């Protein structure tokens, strides 16, 4: 019933489909980091004084920090002075007024990626704030969102147009002192997205952003801030692809979510950055800090992620459940193939009464990959009646990969109920045999079984992402089991 080894290698060794580099002029500062570089970034972006002060404060704190080593990943040391911290597509005039003025090469890039920018954008019903190498070049559907009162723009625009909101919320969920990479991001972040949903407003459409890492040697430091005011609802989609590179690129983003009373934020990610080749050369280092605060009563934050890319993934989308009755959710599928390493999971910190959290994590390892779930559930003494349910399952394909589970359960209130379950297994021989005996090919059978394994997570994704995620999964794992 097994496939021949050479078939497997051919299938596993599929080339990364999104590997291409757009050749456009970039305005890049020389590699290295000091206070002058930070001042330069801030000046280039025309930032107000408070933001520059904040960046410098973060930078000075970063200098005192040590790079963390506790994650279950191995990589060569990163030279932070070899990275160029700013790269922007050259301003031709004062910036494009419409899509016609946008660099056609840029648009072609989006075409290849399938970003629905012009007509396709309307058909897909998605507003795209496409981030291209750190500077936002086009934003669509602004009017429709503006009519509803929703602010959805690049971080730079938000700094210019809504400085009060930025000053009020920036760094309140992930402070500039939070961790090594968050501090670095706070010092040098170049752009990102900003969303503000006013009181009682339900965002009229799903919001989505595509991140791309394009110029060589420019680590991307994105900063996303989403604020859902009382009683509002927003669903935010983030999808990532990157061109093929032979050297490792650092990506240290920060995402902050704030949900006030009765507000809901749904944050979905499909991450498919370049994972390195079959020998483990190249690929993205994805060291991301994502955190949401349920500040008001009955608020809810839901993270859904499908992680198939990056050489190293190191991220823990977290929920701090402060408001009474607030809800945190985390649904994740993490796939690691070839030499990929993933150390990912979540943190659910219960502060308020009757707070609830659900964690469903599915890890799939193949080839030589190492896939770890690391999750913290912390019940503080005030979290009367808090409830957590955690389930993390791992699927192993092949005898050279690894699947790890590192849960941390800290309970300080006796009325809380916390449950954690985990299993690790390989694809059931019986299930495979059943499919084969019904005339289904080995590849399709594996896909079917893996889809079933991940179903609980996929059903949480918005429709268009669910389809993309299914395809991604099939491509990432083809031929991994014989």
């Amino acid at each position, binding site marked *: 019933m097994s496939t021949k080894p050479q078939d497997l290698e051919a299938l596993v060794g599929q080339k990364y489909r999104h590997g291409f580099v757009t050749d456009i002029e970039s305005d890049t500062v020389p590699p290295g980091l000091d206070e002058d570089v930070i001042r330069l970034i801030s000046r280039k972006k025309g930032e107000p004084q408070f933001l520059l002060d904040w960046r410098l404060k973060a930078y000075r704190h970063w200098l005192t920090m040590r790079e963390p080593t*506790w994650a*279950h990943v191995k990589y060569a040391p990163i030279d932070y002075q070899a990275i160029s911290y700013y790269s922007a597509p050259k301003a031709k005039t004062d910036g494009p007024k419409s899509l016609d003025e946008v660099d056609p090469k840029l648009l072609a890039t989006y075409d290849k990626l399938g970003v629905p920018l012009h007509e396709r954008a309307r058909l897909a019903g998605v507003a795209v704030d496409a981030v291209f190498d750190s500077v936002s070049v086009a934003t669509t559907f602004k009017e429709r969102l503006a009519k509803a009162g929703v602010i959805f723009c690049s971080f730079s625009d938000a700094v210019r147009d809504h400085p009060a909101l930025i000053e009020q919320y920036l760094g309140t969920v992930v402070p500039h002192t939070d961790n090594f990479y968050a501090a670095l991001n706070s010092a040098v972040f170049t752009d990102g997205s900003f969303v503000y949903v006013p009181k009682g407003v339900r965002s009229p459409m799903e919001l989505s952003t595509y991140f791309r890492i394009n110029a060589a040697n420019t680590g991307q430091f994105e900063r996303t801030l989403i604020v859902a005011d009382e009683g509002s609802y927003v669903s935010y989609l983030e999808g990532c692809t990157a061109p093929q590179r032979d050297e490792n690129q650092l990506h240290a983003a920060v995402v902050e979510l704030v949900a006030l009373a009765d507000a809901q934020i749904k944050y979905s990610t499909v991450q498919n950055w370049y994972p390195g080749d079959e020998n483990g050369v190249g690929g993205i280092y994805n060291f991301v800090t994502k955190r949401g605060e349920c500040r008001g009563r009955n608020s809810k934050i839901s993270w859904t992620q499908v992680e198939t890319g990056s050489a190293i993934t190191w991220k823990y989308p977290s929920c701090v459940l402060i408001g009474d009755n607030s809800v945190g959710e985390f649904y994740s599928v993490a796939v690691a193939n070839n030499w990929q390493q993933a150390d990912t999971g979540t943190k659910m910190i219960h502060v308020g009464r009757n707070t609830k959290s659900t964690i469903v994590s599915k890890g799939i390892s193949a080839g030589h990959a190492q896939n770890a779930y690391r999750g913290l559930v912390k019940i503080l*003494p005030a979290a009367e009646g808090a409830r957590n349910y955690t389930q993390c399952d*791992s699927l*192993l*394909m*092949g*005898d*050279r*990969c*690894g*699947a*790890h*589970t*590192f*849960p*941390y*359960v*800290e*309970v*300080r*209130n*006796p*009325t*809380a*109920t*916390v*449950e*954690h*379950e*985990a*299993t*690790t*297994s*390989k694809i059931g021989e019986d299930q495979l045999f059943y499919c084969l005996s019904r005339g289904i090919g080995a590849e399709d059978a594996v896909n079917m079984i893996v889809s079933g394994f991940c179903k609980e997570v996929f059903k949480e994704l918005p429709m268009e992402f669910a389809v993309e995620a299914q395809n991604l999964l099939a491509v990432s794992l083809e031929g991994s089991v014989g």
Partner: protein
Amino acid sequence: MNVAVNAPGPLTRLAPALPGLPGGAPWDEWRGCALARLQALGLPSPRDEAWKYTNLRLLERRELAPAPPRPVDAGALEALVPALDGARLVLVDGRVAPGLTAGVLPAGLRVTPLATAMATLAPEALAGGFPLPGDDVDQRVRLLNSALLTDGLHLQVDGELAAPLHLIHASTGGGAHPRVIVDLAPHARLTLVEHRVPLGEAEGFAAPATEIRLQPGACLEHVRVQLASAREIVLDDVQVQVDRDARYVQLGYAFGGQLARAETRVTLAAPGAHAELHGLFMVDGSRQLDNRTLMTHAAPRTTSVQVFRGVASGRARGVYDGKIVVAPGAAKSESSQSSRNLLLSPQAEIDSRPQLEILTDDVKCAHGATTGQLDEDMLFYLLSRGIDRATARGLLTFAFAEDVIAKLAIPTLRRSLEERVVRGLPDAELIREFV
């Protein structure tokens, strides 16, 4: 002037304690080497992932150096531990106390006190070699034990021993650093019962290290009852090597200690090796009990089971931190881990960390952890039968602990542990009627 900076840490105070410990020059050198390595590493801090949940501030001012020999009255000891069939060996503050030994050593058991043997044998020649711990895992407790090694026992078993061997660790205060080595020949069988009891209420510190080696087909049932005083710190370190078709079963019952941390590392080294760790910890006051396990499946077709039950009340803290590692190539291994915890008061805390590190695919591994309070439905059932709330809660807590106590095959020991649990519950008199 900052006093804290200038105050000598517990490690810097140790050097004067080293001369005068048993053994000749080779042992002095061996101990010096261990101390130098430990000083280079420093004592653990909460920043170390493996010590994250352990409160180490207590250690700062504790006297770690070995206590001087003190006479002990046999009667005082007998009041503290149940009488078992079989021979009894006693270590007082980590030193063998021949005067307290009782019963006849069975045929097939050879007992060598280490201090005596150290006088004539170099580290390489004693008990099949006495290597210093490696750097693969955090073994600072074992290094500390090595640096201050005072005495201990080498137990060699050949044949099936019917009666349990009773080993008592008694403490009178001060430091205790014994080493116990247990060697089971092929197909040998032993039940080893270890009791840790305090003689008095003096401040104490113990870092005992145990080394267990099971040859093919051997079987060891290892019962450990920890009843240290509320002024003692115990950092216990057990290392087990299980060969082909051998079987290691540990039944651990931890009740005492101001801070008691028990670490058990098991290596299932050959096909068919099997290990079980059953643990119960009950902690109250503002004390801390910390349980750590590392179960390494190093060979194919090895199996392991871990079942831990924890109860914390008052302002106490209980920890279960267990890890299963399935090495590459250890196919067809099966492993399970269950950690269930009961919080009985609003200020108590339980931290549970059941970890899996799986490096091959053809395995079955599962773990589960729950932390919560007593089941409302069960409470309601008892209340509806006319039992008051306090007694009902006591009964259910007893039943929770009984899960692990019932594993004991020695009736006297089981009864003494049940009594220990009941004594700690409210309405002990009433509960006795039920159980």
